[in-house]
Each structure stands twice: as C-alpha cells, then as structure tokens.
C-alpha cells in the first residue's frame, strides 16, 4: 500500500489547518454559509437531513488494519458507533458534529487518510477494481496509477472549482469491476503490441439524471503522458463545461454537445501544448509508486493440494460450501483466494458496519491478509490475499462476526444508497426497500438458483445507488408527495456496460416485492440452460417482464 512521506504529511497537515480556520470563521459568523458550503464539501462534510455527514476517502478502496482501527475509534468517539461503505468505495460517518470535523481529520491524517475532495465540484476520490493486483485475468495492476492520480488531483490549484463533480475510475482488467464506462473519465491500463504500458481513455460516462455510457477518446495514451493528458481534459472541461444549469454541467453533457470527435480534437489540441512538459511522468516516479504495490510475501503452495483440502471440508459442511461458492474470488497466485466479507445481512442497511466490526475486519486482515483490506463499490469488504488452507478458519470467524452471509453477487447483495432515511436530496427511502426484498427472498436455495443478479436501489435520480446499471434497478420517485418506485431492467456495470430500460409506471412501496417476484418468475420460465438473468433479458427483451408486471 502507498505510504506517506514527509511531503504528503505536510500537505495534508496544512489542509487541516486551513479547514480548522475556515470552520472557526464559519462558527463565529465571519464566513458566510454559502461560502463555507463548497469549502466544507471539499473537506468531505455534507449537511444531510438529520445531521452533518463526513465522507472519508478510501483511495481506490485500499485500507489497512491500522486505518480500520482508527476509523472504529473515530466512530465511537465522534459518532454513533457505526460507519457506512459507499458505492464509491468511501466511508461515511452519519452523525459527526461540525465543530469536531477538523479534529476528526487530524486523527485520520495520523493514519494517512483524508477527506479532501470527497465532495464538491472538484476531482473526487479515484476508484478502482477491488481485486486490483490479485485478479487472475488482470493485465496490469492499476493501483500505482491510481496513486499518481490521487496526488495529481489533490489540491490541484486549477481544478478546485469545476462546473460540477468529477470522477475518475481505473482498471487493469478486462472484467470491469470499476465501471469505467460510467465515469467522467474511465481509464483502462493496457499494454500495446510493443509491450509498452498506457491507457485507453474513455470520457463522458456517468449516471445521475442523464445516464450516458462514456466515449472512447484515445485508444492508447503512453503512461508517461497520463497527467498532462488529464490536465488537458480537465482544462477543456473547466473552460467549456456549462455553468448555467447544474443538471447540464457534467462533462458528459459537454462531450455530447460538442460530439466526441470535436471534444477529442480540443483535448488533443490542448494536450499538444502540455505534452512532454514538466508534468510528464518520469520512470523514477512510476517505479516509486509501483514499489508500494509489490507482491506481499506469498509462500509457495501446491494449489491442487490446498484446493483438495478445502473441498474435503466443504463436502461435509453445506454452509461452508455455499459460502465458498459465492463469497470467493480467484487469485493469480496458486493456493490463495480473495474473500468477500458480506456487509448486507438482512435487517442491516447495506454497507453499514459497526465500530466493533471495523476492528474485527482489521483483526481478520492482520491474521489472514497481510494487514490489508479493500472496500468495494458494491458496499462489501474484500480480503484479497487469503491462503486457501485458512479459508475454513476465516469463514468461522467471519460467520461469528456476521460477515459471512453467502450472498455475494446474488439478488440479496443489494447496492443501496442511504436514501430518504438520511439524505436530504432523496425522493424516497431506499433502505427499507432493500430490506423488504431481502426478507421476501430469504430462501437461499432459490436465490442461488437465480444466479448472478445485481439489484441496485437509488433514492433519487442522482443515482448514488447506481440503479441504471443494475440488472434490476429501482429508483425512488416522488408522485404528489408520495414515495413511489420506478423499476428498470437490463442495466450492466461490467465491461458489457448497458443502461437499464424503464419497465413502466412506478409502483408503491408495498408492491415492490411482488413485482420483483414476477420479474424473477419471467426469468426462470424463459431462461435457457446456464443463462444468467441479464443474458435472458438481453435475449427476450423488456416486453415479457412488462406484461407480467402490469397484468391485471
């Protein structure tokens, strides 16, 4: 993992001192609320429906046990003893006191964490693949580049007041777990035919009110040119992006308005001035960052023997076997596996963790995974480096701590934004919908039989729950002051990115479980052997689902 040097510490320390001063000026009435607003947002502080909310960056999802323990302590000392994993791999506190935030930030800085630019019209935390560095099919580890982008974007003097927020995602795999096609900039680290590393650059994707799949702007950008090219894109956006209407201010609207060819032409023209300048990455810097993400001290393991041992235990233990089948991911090193700790048992708001659980995750990370963990955009935790021989003992501990719900990737592994229970922008609640669905579909055998289903819920069109790219998406809408839910089908956040299609008129809250049941029945009745939900949908289209949902 990346480790701060004195420069990183100095920058973040000065940032906290600056924000402490701003908070004091605000509390004393010297700084106007509308001026404090963007300043506090750029330090992670929202004011929500019930209380302030502090969003803490987890850079590209990487977190270590020391940081987890510190977060646990912070939730106890400054909050109500729990935190929330967001759909962008960050961690939120729901109840901090505004006046305490500078102290919280100082505590975070001690463990090399910050909340800089986790909100506001600026470059946000860069997200990535939760299996970065271990995925079997990964071509190149994206994390060194994520860190390079983190530093470049942190307190970038030119781009702190963009037309709107700006999100960058990076992956080095063909299986896209970072949803790069629905980000303002999506980067796929690739190797060209000469074996040189570079990036495929996708711009102008995004969810929200106007969901758009990003456009390819450059097929191959050499790695040394990463920052100058990002500067060029951001400058074009900063100068030309719309500022008159916040719903038309994202870069996706600019790319659409200009057309991607014209947009790319402007970026290239700007880049022609910046390329090969001082901001061009040096091999020394690339190597320095790569050195933070070298392989941990793996031991040599006979994979077949290790697997046979696991299989033998699983043969006698159905619960363990189910867990293995859903909560495990392959690993590029023989004898190892990546394990997903499930944060969505029924009855708990998806992504919520208690202080005690954070500490248990830290302990498990120390014991089983070289002291590191990752947050995932589907609001779970990954321990990426677990020996197969230790899976059974990890499972037992995870189970005791409530992390072993064997539902990863299934219907009940719901992605869900905080919604109307917390968020002041919400049209409707989202957490109770997730719970109603989890309760209705509590027969795990049925859920397993359904296979892979992404069910995503957002409480309004800002789409923090990524409902457009759920195989089943649920969107809270407001109809004459009442909460209703629109259903979309066929979205996909993977490398086969697709935006869901609206099924039809919205439903009332109590109807949702039945409607979902009907949709699942259509799938089960129509699927071919081995077909997943989204594949059946792609083959038969929306009509049969619609017919069932609105049948009189």
């Amino acid at each position, binding site marked *: 993992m990346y480790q701060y040097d004195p420069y990183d510490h100095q920058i973040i320390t000065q940032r906290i001192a*600056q924000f402490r001063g701003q908070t004091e000026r605000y509390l004393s009435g010297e700084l106007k609320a509308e001026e404090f607003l963007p300043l506090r947002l750029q330090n992670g502080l929202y004011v929500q429906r019930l209380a302030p909310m502090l969003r803490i960056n987890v850079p590209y999802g990487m977190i270590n046990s020391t940081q987890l323990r510190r977060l646990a302590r912070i939730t106890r000392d400054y909050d109500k003893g729990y935190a929330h994993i967001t759909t962008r791999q960050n961690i939120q506190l729901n109840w901090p006191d505004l006046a305490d935030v500078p102290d919280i930030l100082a505590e975070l800085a001690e463990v090399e964490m910050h909340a800089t630019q986790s909100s506001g019209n600026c470059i946000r935390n860069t997200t990535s693949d939760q299996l970065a560095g271990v995925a079997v099919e990964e071509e190149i580890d994206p994390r060194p580049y994520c860190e390079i982008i983190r530093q470049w974007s942190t307190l970038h003097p030119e781009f702190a007041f963009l037309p709107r927020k700006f999100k960058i995602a990076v992956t080095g795999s063909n299986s896209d777990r970072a949803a790069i096609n629905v980000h303002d900039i999506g980067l796929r680290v690739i190797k060209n035919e000469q074996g040189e590393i570079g990036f495929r650059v996708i711009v102008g994707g995004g969810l929200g009110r106007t969901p758009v799949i990003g456009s390819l702007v450059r097929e191959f950008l050499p790695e040394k040119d990463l920052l100058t090219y990002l500067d060029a894109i951001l400058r074009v956006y900063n100068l030309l992006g719309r500022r008159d209407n916040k719903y038309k201010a994202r870069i996706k609207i600019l790319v659409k308005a200009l057309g991607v060819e014209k947009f790319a032409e402007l970026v290239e023209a700007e880049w022609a001035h910046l390329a090969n300048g001082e901001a061009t990455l040096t091999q020394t810097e690339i190597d320095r960052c790569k050195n933070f993400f070298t392989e941990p001290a793996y031991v040599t393991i006979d994979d077949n023997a290790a697997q046979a041992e696991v299989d033998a235990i699983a043969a006698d233990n159905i619960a363990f076997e189910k867990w293995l089948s859903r909560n495990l991911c392959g690993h590029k090193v023989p004898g190892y596996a990546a394990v997903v700790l499930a944060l969505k048992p029924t009855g708990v708001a998806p992504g919520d963790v208690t202080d005690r659980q954070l500490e248990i995750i830290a302990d498990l990370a120390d014991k089983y995974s070289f002291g590191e963990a990752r947050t995932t955009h589907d609001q779970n935790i990954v321990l990426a480096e677990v020996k197969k021989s230790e899976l059974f003992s990890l499972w037992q501990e995870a189970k005791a701590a409530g992390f072993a719900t064997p539902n990863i990737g299934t219907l009940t592994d719901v992605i869900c934004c905080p919604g109307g229970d917390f968020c002041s922008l919400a049209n409707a609640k989202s957490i109770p919908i997730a719970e109603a669905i989890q309760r209705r579909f509590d027969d795990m055998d049925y859920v397993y039989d359904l296979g892979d289903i992404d069910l995503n819920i957002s409480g309004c069109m800002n789409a923090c729950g990524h409902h457009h790219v759920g195989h089943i998406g649920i969107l809270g809408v407001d109809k004459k002051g009442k909460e209703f839910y629109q259903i979309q089908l066929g979205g996909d956040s993977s490398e086969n990115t697709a935006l869901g299609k609206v099924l039809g008129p919205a439903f009332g809250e109590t109807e949702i479980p039945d409607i979902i049941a009907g949709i699942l029945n259509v799938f089960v009745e129509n699927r071919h052997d081995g077909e997943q939900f989204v594949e059946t949908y792609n083959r038969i289209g929306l009509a049969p689902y619609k017919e069932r949902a609105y049948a009189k």
Partner: protein
Amino acid sequence: MPNNTLVIKDGKITDNLWKIVSEDHSDLTQDGIILPYSLWLANQNELSQRVSEGKIGLLLEGDHNLQEQNEGIADFALIAINFPGFMDGRGFSVARLLRERYGFTGELRASGGVIRDQLCYLQRCGFSSFDLDADINIEAAVESLNDFSEGYQISVDLPTPLFRRRA
C-alpha cells in the same frame, strides 16, 4: 467590479492604482484604467502606445477565447480577470494560459467574486494581485496566501512537480 482603494499585490496590501471601467466609458485618455476587452479592441490603434507605456490595463472574462483573441496581450502591464462568482473556476485556467502560453509577465489580478480561501490556489495559477469584494477583511485575507507551502502539481509559481523534487 470591486475597484477597492486597497488591493493585495505580491503578498502585500497596497494602494490600488487601477480602476476597471465599463464598456461605455468614454474618456480613454486617463491613465490606470482597466478596459474591457471589447473597448480595447475598438480603440486598439490609438491606445497601443499607452499600453506599451504600462498605462492601460485589460479586463478579461472567464469565457474569453484566448486562442483566438490573444494579440498584443503580453504587452499590458496589468490584466484583470473577472470572477462573476467564486464558484466560477474558469479564471484559474485563463490565468495559467496567460502565464504559461501567452507570455504574460505583468500584474495578473483576480477581480470580483473570489474569496479569501481561494487566494492560495489563485496565486499558484499565476495571479499576483487581488481586488476582493469590499466586505472581505483584507488584512486577514492576505494570510491565506500562505495556506500551503507545497503542492503536488506543477503550477505557475512552482513549475516543477513534486515527483521531480522528491529526494
């Protein structure tokens, strides 16, 4: 337009020797006036001598297209960039372009809606003077220029990125 009697210049509070005038300003013989781009364009010939003597300043808006309208821009002693509101960040890019691409070395002034908390970023983008809204406490504001002593990126005042300076 603020046109305050005091401005921050090169890190210090000093008298404001300049005045922004409006598009319909008629007396162009005054010294120390800052003209909107259109007004200057319309009177370019008769003003060019006084521009090169450092007596006329230029006012640019955030949407000014420097690529197409940059002729003679480096000759001004002062260019002011107008910020219609502090959330409008276009001026940050315009400033860097003036400094890094169009050879402007004179006084670069941020004028209007910027707030104290942006001064450090503005300075990094090449601004050397600030004519802030009148209700801002300028003595306190000047301290914010020093909020940060280090930055990761290249900028006008720090043309080498941190990664090339790291030991």
